[in-house]
């Protein structure tokens, strides 16, 4: 299973992002290299301040005002996303890369019903979708409502440019599709939910609505940023299972970037894991390989910190020190002040992300 066999859907190279704060410049991302392979679930794992959310925001073009990209590229479908204008990025977010975040309440409009919001996700899509739907009409005028087919049908030929669908018809199609997509995310009683407001739903249900709305745009990439952190553990289990189910069902067209601070979630849900620390990618590997043989000292220590329910221990190990201040990050390797294997070179030179074995990369002078 060589890395080269996989098609890369998105790739960041040398991505460097700083934030301007009145205390100084925060060097949030330091030459981050990330590759997303088609159809996989890639987990971006790290603790607070490591830059995982910043990476997602940079890809989406949603960085706040005080952030700026110092350098690097984000290659997607042959183009550099960083070179796109704000309007172009909006289209990308609407149709290609969808994102779901931790708190659904801040992303759902509290005064609109779920129905209106989910339908909107369908209605904002441009041309091809509606032409494609028009093509599906049988002689009697019925529309193909199979949602899986809908989701899989990515490149609908934009042949029927001339066909303009009436608003009413669009509404009806969107309504049916909305019901179907809510069923896909396993929401019980979709008809009723379409009439409800966000605050009437529980946290888990809101998160499912967010997933539905994201999928409705038929994205090639789904970014899920800490989507289960605010949820109870039984609900979290449901959502993670749903994500895995979706990956298997929509395999053809969906790649998921799962951002989490919880290695256990990554272990259960992801195919590959990228470990980040203080703005750097420190290790990349397939999930199985990472747990069998973690190479980077940070990864090794992190694994020892997590209590495993199956094997209770007397004492948890911890990592001495704390996450560095990124305004004045440590010289050389940013992990060196806390590293049990620190060498002279670590203080002076930054390591390079090197492939140690097939598909397993490490950012460390030990290798």
């Amino acid at each position, binding site marked *: 299973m060589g890395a080269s066999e996989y098609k890369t859907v998105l790739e960041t190279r040398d991505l460097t992002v700083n934030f301007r704060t009145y205390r100084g410049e925060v060097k949030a991302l330091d030459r981050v290299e990330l590759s997303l392979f088609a159809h996989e679930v890639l987990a971006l794992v790290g603790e*607070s301040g490591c830059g995982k959310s910043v990476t997602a925001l940079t890809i989406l073009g949603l960085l706040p005002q005080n952030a700026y990209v110092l350098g690097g590229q984000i290659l997607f479908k042959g183009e550099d996303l960083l070179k796109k204008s704000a309007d172009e990025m909006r289209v990308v977010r609407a149709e290609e890369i969808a994102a779901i975040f931790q708190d659904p309440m801040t992303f759902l409009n509290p005064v609109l019903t779920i129905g209106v919001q989910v339908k909107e996700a369908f209605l904002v899509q441009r041309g091809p979708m509606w032409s494609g739907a028009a093509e599906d009409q049988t002689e009697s005028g019925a529309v193909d409502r199979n949602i899986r087919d809908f989701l899989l049908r990515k490149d609908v030929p934009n042949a029927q440019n001339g066909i303009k669908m009436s608003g009413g018809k669009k509404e009806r199609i969107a309504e049916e599709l909305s019901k179907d997509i809510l069923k896909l995310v396993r929401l019980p009683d979709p008809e009723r939910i379409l009439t409800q407001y966000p605050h009437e739903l529980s946290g*888990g249900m809101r998160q499912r609505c967010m997933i539905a709305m994201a999928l409705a745009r038929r994205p090639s990439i789904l970014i899920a940023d800490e989507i289960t952190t605010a949820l109870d*553990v*039984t609900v979290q289990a449901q959502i993670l299972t749903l994500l895995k189910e979706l990956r298997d069902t929509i395999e053809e067209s969906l790649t998921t970037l799962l951002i989490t601070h919880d290695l256990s979630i990554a*272990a259960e849900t992801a195919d590959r894991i990228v470990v980040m620390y203080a703005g750097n990618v420190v290790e990349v590997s397939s999930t199985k390989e990472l747990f069998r043989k973690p190479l980077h000292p940070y990864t090794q220590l992190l694994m020892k*910190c997590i209590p495993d*329910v199956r094997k209770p221990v007397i004492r948890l190990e*911890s990592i001495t020190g704390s*996450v560095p201040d990124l305004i004045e990050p440590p010289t050389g390797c940013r992990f060196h002040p806390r590293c049990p294997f620190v060498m002279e070179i670590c203080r002076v030179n930054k390591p390079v992300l090197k492939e140690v074995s097939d598909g397993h990369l490490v950012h460390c002078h030990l290798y």
Partner: protein
Amino acid sequence: MSEELLVVEDLKTWFPIKAGVMQRTVGDVKAVDGVSLTVGRGETHGLVGESGSGKTTLGKSALRLIEPTAGKVLFDGFDVTKATKKELRKLRRRMQIIYQDPYASLDPRQTVRSLLTEPMRTHKLVSSRAEATSRATELLLMVGLNEEHAYRFPHEFSGGQRQRIAVARALAVEPEFIILDEPTSFLDVSVQAQVLDLLKDLQRNLGLTYVFISHNLSVVQYMSDRVDVMYLGKIVEDASRDVLYKSPEHPYSFYLMAAIPIPDPEFKKVPRLLSGDVPSPVNVPPGCRFHPRCPYATEKCRTGEVPFYPGSSADHHVACHYSIDFEAGTSVLRPDAKV
């Protein structure tokens, strides 16, 4: 000096829901609805549950930070629920609490020194400024910080350090008993380990008794000796830690354990998902509160209170009318079932 430091008897904490122009009470949020438990001196008693379970309300009610609606709380034999303001003040020295959010539990305008010395002066534990300061330094060292940290403000510290300050502050009054309300939920994994180990060390060195409240089952397992599982205001299972984690007997406990993510990709977990969402204590189902989501529920579960039945090991209580074989997926009505 009794062996049972904290005894909770049928505690109920209800919050009235007021509606309408006249603000009449139309119902109650039954956050804690009849809970009884015992915490032995020197032990760590874990309290697990999801949101709406009432675990935090239970902890705060035991300390009378929230006034209970009914029931009794005995601390070292002394009735906390009936204590006068003066008696309560004295009790506060012996029972403390550490909060979940280290960013909110410290007054942002106070220096660490002031934070630590204020409780000392309130309870007249020190007689001079110098004594207060030296004691504050002692406390800082005890929690792994240093002397110069005393002159800084909370916002200058990281989450983990702030929790240490909160612990130091609680220790300033020399308590015997501390309620830890999700003390590490807001902290990074690596910092969590540090704080948990600190808590364990302090317990051993100072002979403290803890009630550890958390929704994180792995952490509760690491810290606790006994564990109670709460659901919608009631305890559904009470057992020693090892028994609960190896062989839970209440269906809710079982599904809770099954939901914990395992840090091992090779481990083939049988997907056991609980359907439905975590309910809110506003609309409490009749009978066994868990019955709407329970795959083993029967007619008998829909009415009447569910008492504690003995579990298969000593000192194990399960609030379920049935004995369930989770592997086989079968259930048998208990012979002494009160239905």
